[in-house]
């Protein structure tokens, strides 16, 4: 098991040189922290102890309790701690937290990690800094006010005497933890806001980075699971007489989700799984098709919706409008298709369970395994490995259940590995949806009325139907509600349309579809009004100056209003702050081939994410969101036939390739506001910006994803 072994090795070394301000999980076991905080003490959330360990050698080990899935969290979060600690960045080491309630939520999703960790990690760093400073002042017998900290040292300003943090750590640990230590003014930042290289890059260029699938445990087997291809189906019976005789096969067991084949190697488990004969009870969804679902959405669109947002009198305003428009948009199910297929390694023993897993929610993994095994939570040890992509897929725990049940059944450690076919056909998909919009313009071309009906399955109601008895899931209308535009009469409503297809959180969730409909339709209104698409939006943003600035920055940097290069056409779109709290505007430069092929040459983005903790990281997240959004805009489609997913691998579920990647320019609005999310906001505006550019090029309005002429 590469990753934990590396970590264990490191811990041994640290212990060898002696630990001073020994904090975190360590200190928890050694006792002093126990005296300071109980597990239920909310103060533990921002205690330095949970997050920082300072060795006598001056090394600063910072615990990261969020999952690294490519977004650079093992760099951004330590930067925040190190800033307030006044650590020397070169001495900072990063350690991944084991699942534990003491960290607060470890769930990594919704573009929340930096935003929600910001204050508590700053406080943790500042508290530790204050303790170190006090320790130095006592040692020198001088007032703390005469001391300052810099680069991992405390300096006595009048005399220039210096003590390293490592020399002070042991004494500092004996002081009470200040609960409200002073925080820096952003003007004093010297780590936050800098382009600090990612801490995980070196291991990712030489094969040493350990993903979940790379976990290796003594005596382990590899397992592959046969699952019913039809959603909701179950095992009727199975014949494993052939599979059992195949090389390397250890045990074949039935688990909740199907038949698990454990073998000595991954390949042997795949081969033996293919040799199983399973009879399935397909269940009630056996004849379901995508066409059925589309028809249902269209039918439901005529129902009365649950009102999500309303102001003014839409009906009256529409009837009095000089011009009325309406349009319907539709988007398909999508798979996450992380490059690392789902996997989980579990070792269930009588009195404990240890799990190595690429997960976005280590605590959910811990709870799931505890529930399945009947073990108390603290006897379930969850190691979060690196994630080969997450995008919301790894917030689920289905693959964990499979590994835990298989390990328990065979009495040995096991790694369940999914094939790409398993991954595309057993996902929790980005929901389908249909959007019916209408608007009225006055004689001057200004929108006076606007309606947006979202018809879509609800992720919330799928998971907890009791909570949505009034038919409204605000999550499903996110991006449609709280429009950035000043329109006096508005009605946003929602029709819940559940299907048997499992759905889940997919990068940017509902704004990936509501914003496509909204921003395409706004473009239609601009054309109907004879207005410029940028000016039209801008003229309606007077009450949202922050968002208006973002729109203006993108237009300015993209050269909006100047002629585009020959043969290329521009489209603009805006993505509202939504749950990531971050507005983004994008301009896409597109050409359309004689064969109708849509080619995106350049995407210019403006983003206001508050303080950009690491600008390189923000840019990378924008590049990533755009690439992910472009695959959805131009290629992505999961179709259902006979109750199962048609697509099976990258030949029929293609991803964006290097030759299709546009030039991307990201412009970050300078800010001293607290940071907001960046993982998702780069995505929603991409599809409408491209669709609007296609309209500029061809006069054709594409209202269905993926875009196709």
């Amino acid at each position, binding site marked *: 098991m590469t990753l934990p072994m590396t970590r264990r090795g490191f811990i041994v070394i640290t212990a060898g040189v002696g630990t001073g301000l020994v904090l975190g999980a360590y200190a928890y076991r050694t006792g002093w922290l126990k005296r300071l905080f109980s597990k239920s003490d909310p103060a533990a959330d921002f205690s330095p102890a949970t997050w920082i360990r300072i060795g006598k050698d001056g090394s600063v080990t910072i615990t990261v309790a969020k999952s690294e899935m490519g977004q650079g969290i093992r760099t951004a979060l330590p930067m925040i701690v190190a800033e307030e600690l006044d650590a020397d960045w070169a001495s900072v080491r990063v350690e991944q937290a084991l699942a534990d309630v003491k960290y607060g939520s470890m769930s990594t999703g919704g573009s929340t990690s930096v935003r929600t960790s910001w204050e508590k990690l700053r406080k943790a760093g500042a508290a530790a800094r204050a303790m170190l400073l006090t320790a130095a002042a006592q040692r020198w017998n001088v007032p703390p006010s005469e001391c300052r900290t810099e680069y991992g040292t405390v300096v006595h300003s009048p005399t220039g005497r210096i003590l390293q943090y490592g020399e002070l750590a042991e004494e500092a640990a004996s002081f009470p933890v200040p609960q409200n230590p002073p925080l820096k003014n952003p003007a004093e930042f010297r780590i936050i806001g800098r382009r600090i290289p*990612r801490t995980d890059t070196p*291991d*990712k260029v030489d094969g040493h980075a350990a993903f979940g699938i790379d976990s290796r445990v003594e005596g382990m087997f590899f397992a592959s699971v046969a699952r019913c291809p039809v959603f909701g189906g179950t095992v009727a019976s199975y014949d494993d007489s052939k599979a059992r005789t195949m090389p390397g096969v250890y045990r074949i067991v039935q688990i909740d989700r199907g038949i698990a084949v454990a073998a000595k*190697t991954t390949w042997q488990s795949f081969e033996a799984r293919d040799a199983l004969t399973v009879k399935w009870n397909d269940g009630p969804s056996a004849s379901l098709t995508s066409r059925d679902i589309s028809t249902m959405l269209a039918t439901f669109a005529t129902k009365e919706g649950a009102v999500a947002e309303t102001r003014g009198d839409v009906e009256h305003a529409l009837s009095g409008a000089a011009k009325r428009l309406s349009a319907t948009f539709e988007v398909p199910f999508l798979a996450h298709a992380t*490059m690392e297929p789902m996997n989980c390694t579990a070792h269930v023993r009588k009195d404990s369970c240890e799990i190595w897993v690429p997960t976005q929610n280590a605590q959910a993994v811990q709870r799931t395994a505890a529930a399945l095994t009947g073990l108390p939570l603290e006897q379930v040890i969850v190691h979060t490995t690196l994630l080969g992509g*997450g995008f919301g897929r790894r917030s689920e725990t289905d693959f964990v259940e499979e590994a835990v049940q298989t390990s328990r059944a065979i009495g040995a450690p096991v790694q369940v590995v999914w094939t790409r076919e398993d991954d595309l056909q057993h996902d929790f998909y980005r929901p389908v949806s249909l959007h019916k919009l209408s608007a009225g313009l006055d004689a001057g071309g200004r929108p006076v009325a606007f309606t947006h009906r979202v018809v879509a399955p609800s992720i919330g109601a799928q998971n907890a139907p009791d909570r949505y008895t009034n038919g409204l899931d605000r999550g499903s209308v996110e991006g449609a509600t709280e429009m950035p535009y000043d329109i006096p009469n508005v009605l946003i409503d929602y029709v819940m349309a559940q299907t048997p297809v499992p759905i889940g959180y997919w990068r940017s969730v509902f704004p990936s579809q509501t914003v496509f409909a909204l921003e395409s339709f706004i473009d239609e209104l601009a054309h109907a009004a004879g207005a410029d698409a940028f000016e039209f939006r801008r003229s309606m943003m007077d009450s949202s100056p922050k968002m208006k600035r973002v729109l203006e920055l993108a237009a300015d940097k993209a050269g909006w209003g100047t002629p585009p290069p020959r043969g290329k056409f521009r489209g603009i779109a805006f993505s509202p702050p939504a749950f990531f709290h971050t507005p983004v505007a994008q301009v896409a430069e597109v050409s359309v081939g004689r064969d109708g092929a849509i080619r995106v040459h350049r995407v210019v983005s403006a983003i206001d994410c508050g303080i950009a903790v690491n600008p390189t990281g923000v840019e990378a997240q924008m590049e990533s969101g755009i690439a992910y959004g472009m695959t959805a805009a131009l290629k992505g489609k999961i179709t259902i036939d006979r109750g199962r997913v048609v697509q099976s691998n990258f030949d029929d579920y293609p991803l964006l*390739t290097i030759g299709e*990647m546009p030039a991307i320019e990201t412009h970050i609005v300078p800010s001293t506001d607290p940071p907001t999310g960046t993982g998702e906001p780069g995505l929603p505006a991409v599809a409408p910006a491209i669709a609007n550019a296609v309209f500029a090029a061809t006069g054709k309005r594409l209202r269905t994803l993926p875009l196709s002429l």
Partner: protein
Amino acid sequence: MASLSLTVNGEKKTLDVDPDTPLLWVLRDHLEMTGTKFGCGRGLCGSCVVLSDDAPIRSCITPVGLVNGKSILTIEGLSSTRDHPVQKAWISEEVPQCGYCQSGQIMSAVALLKRVPHPTDAEINQAMGDVLCRCGTYQRIRRAIHQAAEAGGGQ
């Protein structure tokens, strides 16, 4: 089962393994070299690319029997100090995000530069066109390949 021998990263390996086993799983499960990744199992994504006598091959669809006696280079064998020009360029451009596809990206780039020491953008698109990255690191990959070429990465 058959006794096969291949050279992996300069080391001779003798294996008792079904010759139909894909090279990928021999590397990962038999030789415990997990740097080469499983992405699709059908040669479609490139996460499993390794070099066989300098040519890039998709190890997930290459039966190990086919490379009997050949010399295989994997990501682990590129350099012991991360100082291969392609690795240095990858670090300097901060290419990886999740990093899962990067072994295949890097090995494909190494193979390209061996064949074409100074590739054009079109040649990069051609050679790297079916090495998929879900995080969208493509422009950084392109810049890193040009940078590695300048540093003599094809030597």
